[in-house]
């Protein structure tokens, strides 16, 4: 059995391995109840222009009332300049140097721009940010981000909001094997609790999701389902799965088999 260790993000430890988004819920009340049901300790937020200044204040109060650690994102940014500016604005508003770095390279599948992501990550790390880059499941990109000083990487499972699950388990497994000491979080594309379980089974430290819970028929119940799935996946990882075989092997003893004809 492997030894269990807490989820560690830039030196801070957490018992929950389910990071949750705060968007797309049918109501603020359901958002709050879903976050509680998920057992999450980290919630993602963002910044936008708002028509009503009180709307931002009201939302922020709701999040503060949860008492959770806040992870601001740079969702929607398409350039290094945009993410750097938005990250600095987030740091001031949310009083944290954590940043979930999203830098979109293609509008069709919302794929992160790997080249610009490296540049932005370098700038922000040097400015004192603790960068959690949302990236593709490219091993070399992940290695380059690690070399810059990232202590957490967040490769995608599938494009944001698709709910397709882990589209390339081979890539994700390879990243896990090649970066054994890195905190790895599958971010985006999950749709089912089984997807989260699969990520944890393969040794990912956590998952970050939003649409899969907020877009469910009953977000609160789905949040609970994801919580169970993450726990199950982590336990399975610690327990170490049996080796897969190509041929059948009977589980019931064959010694003393009746009606056996030599």
């Amino acid at each position, binding site marked *: 059995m492997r030894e269990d260790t807490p989820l560690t993000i830039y030196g801070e430890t957490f018992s929950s391995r389910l990071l949750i*988004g*705060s*968007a*797309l*819920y049918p109501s603020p009340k359901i*958002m709050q109840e879903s976050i509680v049901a998920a057992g999450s300790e980290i919630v*993602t*937020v*963002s*910044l*936008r*222009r*708002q028509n009503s*200044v*009180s*709307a*931002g*204040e009201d*939302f*922020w109060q709701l*999040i503060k009332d949860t008492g959770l650690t806040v992870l*601001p*994102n740079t*969702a929607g940014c398409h350039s290094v*300049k*945009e993410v750097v*500016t*938005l990250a*600095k*604005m*987030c740091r*001031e*508003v*949310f009083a944290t140097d954590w940043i979930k770095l999203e830098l979109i390279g293609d509008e069709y599948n919302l794929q992160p721009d790997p080249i610009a992501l490296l540049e932005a990550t370098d700038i922000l790390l040097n400015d004192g940010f603790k960068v959690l880059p949302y990236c593709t499941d490219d091993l070399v990109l992940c290695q380059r981000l690690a070399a810059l000083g990232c202590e957490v990487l967040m490769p995608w499972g599938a494009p*944001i909001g698709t709910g397709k699950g882990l589209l390339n388990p081979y890539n994700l497994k390879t990243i896990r094997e090649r970066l054994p000491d890195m905190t790895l979080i599958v971010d985006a594309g999950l749709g089912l609790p089984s997807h989260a379980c699969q990520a944890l089974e393969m040794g990912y430290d956590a998952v970050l999701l*939003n*649409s899969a819970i907020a877009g469910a028929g009953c977000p609160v119940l789905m949040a609970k389902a994801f919580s169970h799935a993450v726990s199950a996946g982590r336990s399975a990882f610690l327990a170490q799965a049996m080796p897969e075989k190509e041929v059948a092997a009977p589980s019931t003893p064959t010694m003393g088999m009746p009606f056996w004809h030599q």
Partner: protein
Amino acid sequence: MKVVFNGKTTQLTTPNLREFILAKGAKEPFAVAVNGEFVPRSQCAETDLKAGDNIDLLSPIQGG
């Protein structure tokens, strides 16, 4: 003299950034950028605006 505030062209009522955003109803928590560059709140009172400036006033919102 006109500037762009949160994407909309508007009259510049005062050249002082802090006074301008307060006149626009800015209420904590918020952060400001001018022409795509972050302006720390501590520097808003010393920042002057000019015609054509692009001012963004952002507040917390849900995020994934």
